[in-house]
């Protein structure tokens, strides 16, 4: 049984269960703009769609590199991520992830890869970055219930706006600067427990954490 399915069905408590085909059609309609563009790149190598993705995500990827202290590699990272997007667009499945999430994981993996290659020669890399950091089951034929995923994602996006600044700061340090919670604690001069509880409060508010009773 899928987790997201269970979680969202809790939210919809009392409502009738939507038949699968209808829910797929509704999900199809709520596909976001970037996911549509990415599909066009995948289906027909659409260069104008690709250019629009570049204009939207390029600056984000560049800032992502800068936040990591990789100013000297920022443009290289943008380039590598964009090339990966083009090469893999045929594999993109909107039912499994929003385009933004899919692109985030590519940017993250490319960043890890570039740093690993700096440290040692690629022949010494015993494990592929991709193997280590990709969710198992990706590329397999078991898409998440798409409508539920889209609802969950939208909910995270909406409730994110209401998070207190101190929680956003911690999340930003973890995601953008790739700091462990311990390092974040040292940097901010607060106990590790405080950092962890801010993270947990944020994840609870965003409903990213599933309560055990939901399962």
């Amino acid at each position: 049984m899928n987790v997201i399915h269970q979680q969202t069905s809790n939210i919809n408590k009392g409502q009738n269960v939507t038949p699968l085909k209808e829910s797929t059609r509704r999900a199809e309609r709520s596909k976001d703009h970037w996911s549509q563009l990415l599909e066009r790149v995948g289906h027909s190598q659409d260069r104008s769609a690709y250019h629009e993705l570049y204009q939207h995500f390029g600056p984000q990827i560049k800032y992502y590199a800068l936040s990591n202290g990789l100013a000297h590699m920022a443009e290289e990272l943008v380039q590598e991520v964009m090339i990966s997007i083009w090469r893999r667009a045929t594999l993109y499945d909107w039912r499994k992830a929003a385009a933004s999430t899919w692109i985030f994981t590519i940017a993250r993996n490319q960043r890890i890869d570039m740093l690993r290659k700096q440290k040692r020669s690629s022949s010494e890399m015993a494990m592929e970055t991709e193997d280590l950091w990709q969710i198992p089951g990706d590329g397999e034929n078991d898409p998440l219930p798409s409508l539920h995923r889209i609802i969950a994602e939208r909910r995270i996006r909406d409730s994110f706006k209401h998070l207190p600044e101190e929680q956003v700061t911690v999340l930003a340090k973890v995601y953008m600067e790739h700091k462990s919670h311990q390092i974040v604690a040292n940097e901010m001069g607060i106990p590790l427990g405080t950092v962890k509880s801010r993270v947990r409060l944020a994840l609870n508010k965003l409903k990213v954490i599933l309560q055990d009773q939901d399962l």
Partner: protein
Amino acid sequence: MSSHHPDEVLLMEYSAGSLSEPMALCVRMHLEKCSRCRGQLDMLNSLGAIMMDTSSASHIAATHSAEDVSEDLFSTIMNRLDAEQATTTTDKPAAKTVSTSRLTPLAKLLGKELEELPWKRQLGDVSVCDISNYFGTGERVTLQKLVAGGRAPAHRHGGTETTVVLHGAFADSNGVFEAGDMVVLDEHGDHRPVALHGEDCYTLSVLTAPVQLTGRFSRMLNPFIR
């Protein structure tokens, strides 16, 4: 489905890509068996995408300058793709064979079955295979094998030990751990695992600091558990 999960803080560090390779491998081996955490990770990755979006947006708002990406860079990218397309139309990259892509990263790393590894027998029921050298991160990374029905000597950890069950199951005072289950023990944990189900139990452990033994064979055993 697994019943002992990485906590959300660890899972978030995995999602953010900030874990060391051995720790990422532990989480990855857990995800292999746990749909709950795969779902959770999906959402954490969505959060990552939101962070990437909002952080750059607020940076732009604060500095009044976008991190521009130039049209020149776009041309460079398109040229690279065109050049690539010209060379790969005749020479397509071979599709990964199903059997290889189904292997876990640990199986690929080891290149052989767990049973075939050069196990070093320690005291009684426990064997160990040190794979720290694959990583070079300074963490002690070991595979451990507890023979069916066997019991490991009581020990306490001087640092933090993260363990994921690869095959079989064991039980200790904290509960029963089946394949995929993950447990993080700090220096306060004192445990004596026993292998269950009449089969050998294999685990992967990452240790960030030495272990102290609490049993009477401490001197002898130190090399194994540390």
